[in-house]
């Protein structure tokens, strides 16, 4: 990692240090104090251009924030803000509102009514921290093409459907029955819903890398301390081999998430493959990472009072969000089919447009 990214990680860790999980209990709700602190330090708008009040950073900077927040199991929608909202807001030249901001691709339609006001209808599902956020940023379809909407969550025509995920984090649905707002900004032609999904998947892969590392660290510590048969567990070869397999899986999740971010940064043709692989690997390996972590912890890891569950519960939730492994495996097969079965061309030349390949247009 470059010095700049290392410094950034250090700074983010500083803010998060007092919030690391001590057990597996569900968060009480969105940590608004933490959001405020991150917002004041400019972290929540890190990847937005300076003209829009952002930090002018890249997706790589945002990735540092998202991974660190996930390692701390922080109850703030920074992944949504930095990966799903920021690219659309930047493209539309729109400033983000103050206060907690979440984002999600949904199925929404906006029509102009009068004097710059729009009326939004449609639905959103399983949006992180929706009920606690001030606004949700989402792509919408308008009669004139794609746009991004900054929807006030408290609007009386927005009906919340509250829910939680496996980690006890808020995942709320919403039905919009004509929410009126002037915060709708046209976007240039493009595949915005698909992009929001891609960025969301990359963010989840990063978060899972952070949580998977948490499992590895907790497990390493546990097997070094716990004594059975007169020696620490780590002295048993069966345990060592499980640890090695765990480390290999964790490193795989980390490196593929890194590689996905680098591909997004380059905006080459390989970004879809790299993100697909990162999310598919993370989702597929969540099972073995959690399984080994729990097996080596024994019963204590299965309790609410141990922090292992804070990581594994999130892995189990996040693996299904923004596409599980089967979803992305199928998407990858589509990419292979588009290249006439040339797997190697896809993998090795993926940042070059294949000759004669189909290009997906629209959503």
């Amino acid at each position, binding site marked *: *990692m470059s010095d700049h990214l290392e410094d950034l990680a250090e700074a983010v860790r500083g803010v998060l240090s007092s919030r690391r999980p001590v057990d597996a209990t569900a968060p009480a709700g969105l940590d608004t104090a933490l959001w405020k602190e991150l917002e004041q330090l400019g972290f929540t708008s890190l990847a937005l251009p300076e003209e829009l009040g952002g930090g002018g950073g890249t997706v790589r900077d945002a990735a540092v924030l998202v991974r660190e927040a996930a390692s701390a199991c922080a109850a703030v929608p920074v992944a949504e803000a930095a990966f799903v909202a920021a690219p659309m807001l930047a493209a539309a030249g729109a400033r983000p509102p103050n206060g907690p901001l979440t984002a999600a691709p949904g199925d929404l339609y906006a029509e102009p009514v009068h004097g710059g006001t729009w009326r939004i209808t449609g639905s959103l599902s399983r949006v992180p921290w929706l009920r606690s956020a001030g606004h949700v940023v989402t792509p919408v379809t308008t009669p004139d093409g794609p746009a991004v909407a900054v929807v006030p969550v408290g609007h009386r025509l927005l009906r919340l459907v509250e829910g939680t995920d496996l980690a006890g984090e808020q995942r709320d649905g919403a039905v919009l029955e004509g929410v009126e707002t002037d915060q709708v900004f046209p976007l240039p032609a493009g595949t915005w819903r698909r992009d929001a999904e891609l960025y969301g998947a990359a963010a989840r892969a990063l978060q899972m890398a952070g949580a998977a590392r948490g499992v590895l660290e907790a497990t*390493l510590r546990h*097997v*070094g301390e716990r004594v059975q048969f007169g020696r620490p567990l*780590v*002295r048993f*070869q069966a345990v*060592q*081999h499980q*640890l*090695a*397999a765990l*480390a*290999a899986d964790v*490193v*795989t999740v*980390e*490196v*593929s998430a*890194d*590689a996905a971010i*680098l591909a997004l940064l*380059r905006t*080459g043709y*390989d970004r879809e*493959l*790299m993100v*697909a*692989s*990162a999310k*598919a*690997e993370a989702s*597929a390996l969540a099972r073995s990472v959690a399984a080994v972590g729990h097996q080596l912890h024994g019963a204590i890891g299965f309790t609410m009072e141990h922090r292992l569950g804070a990581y594994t519960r999130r892995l189990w939730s996040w693996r299904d969000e923004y596409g599980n*492994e*089967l979803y*992305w*495996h*199928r*998407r*990858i*097969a*589509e*990419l*292979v*089919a588009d290249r*006439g*079965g*040339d*797997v*190697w061309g*896809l*993998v*090795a*030349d*993926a*940042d*070059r447009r294949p000759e004669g390949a189909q290009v997906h247009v629209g959503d």
Partner: protein
Amino acid sequence: MTLRITAVDAPPGALHELRLEVREFLRREIAAGGFEPEADAWMSGVDPAFSRRLAGRGWVGMTVPARYGGHGRSALERYVVTEELLVAGAPVAAHWIADRQMAPGILRNGSEEQKHRYLPGIVRAEQFMAIGMSEPDSGSDLASVRTRAVEVDGGWRLTGTKVWTSVAHIATAIVVLARTDEGGDRHSGLSQFIVDLPHPAVTISPIITIDGAHHFNEVVFDDAVVPQSALLGRRGDGWRQVTAELGNERSGPERFLSALPLLLAWTRTGAFADDPLARADLGRLVSRLTALRQLSLAVAERLSAGENPAVEAALVKDLGTAFEGEMVDVVRRHVDPASGAVPEQLAAMLAKAVLHVPAFTLRGGTNEVLRSIVAKGLTGR
């Protein structure tokens, strides 16, 4: 140690011109009947004439400095060429070991005389080399080797037996790990020797593998006397030298690409396209291939920066070799020769690949040994 691997910030299209050049060369070779693509050909495809044609293009000993007859190319350039050769299933086994680990080993540890003596020949694909590490009673426990080298007038006398020695029957030299000194801990007292072949007191006999082929050999040293200059590196430094060599041996793309020619032979038939199960399985393989390649590239970069990422190389080889075996099995499930619709070449490639799978997780250090190395690295024990 906190085991960390960082993805390489190099676009996959870097060195694309070189990649295309190698592909075009291979395409013409296949069209002209120069070779037939096979899975795992880096182990079984021995074709000295092909190796020399490749050398003629400057693609053997690529990273050897020009003063030793080499091409002074970067490790990443070599990585690209290596990938393309593996993916095409080209018969590279004759020169593979010399190119992969003996040239770097001699560069690291050899005398000036040894460098001038061996490297130009390796680069021209005239020197082919074998690895004399394993013995009948020393496999995973390599430090227990019993082959002895005793200093005699003007040289060394080697006595002992090496087994599973790949390509020894065509090699012009073998690098032997032998015990030179007793006492001290078991990792000290080992040394490496380069023994020119053929040698009157060295007997090489084939050992036939379960695919019915002759890949590896038994090599018996019956008081074989070699000159003083055969000692590679420092006396007693053999263990350290071999460990560094294993970094080269374990980190390359052949540890996850051995079966790729088979996968391509299947996907190019297009048979997966209308089968949802086949698509899902294929997507899983390509996802993993993409991830493992990033891991492998990251380790290769560390290696080329002069580090010895032994733990990381072990981790990637463990994952990669298990993956190669899985790849063969996935293709097998979707290619049913009984259906009568499978091209002959694909069926033959599959049959051979199935018979090679057990070797994937043994050669170059078993996956159990690799996991122990990773665990040691993780826990510092």
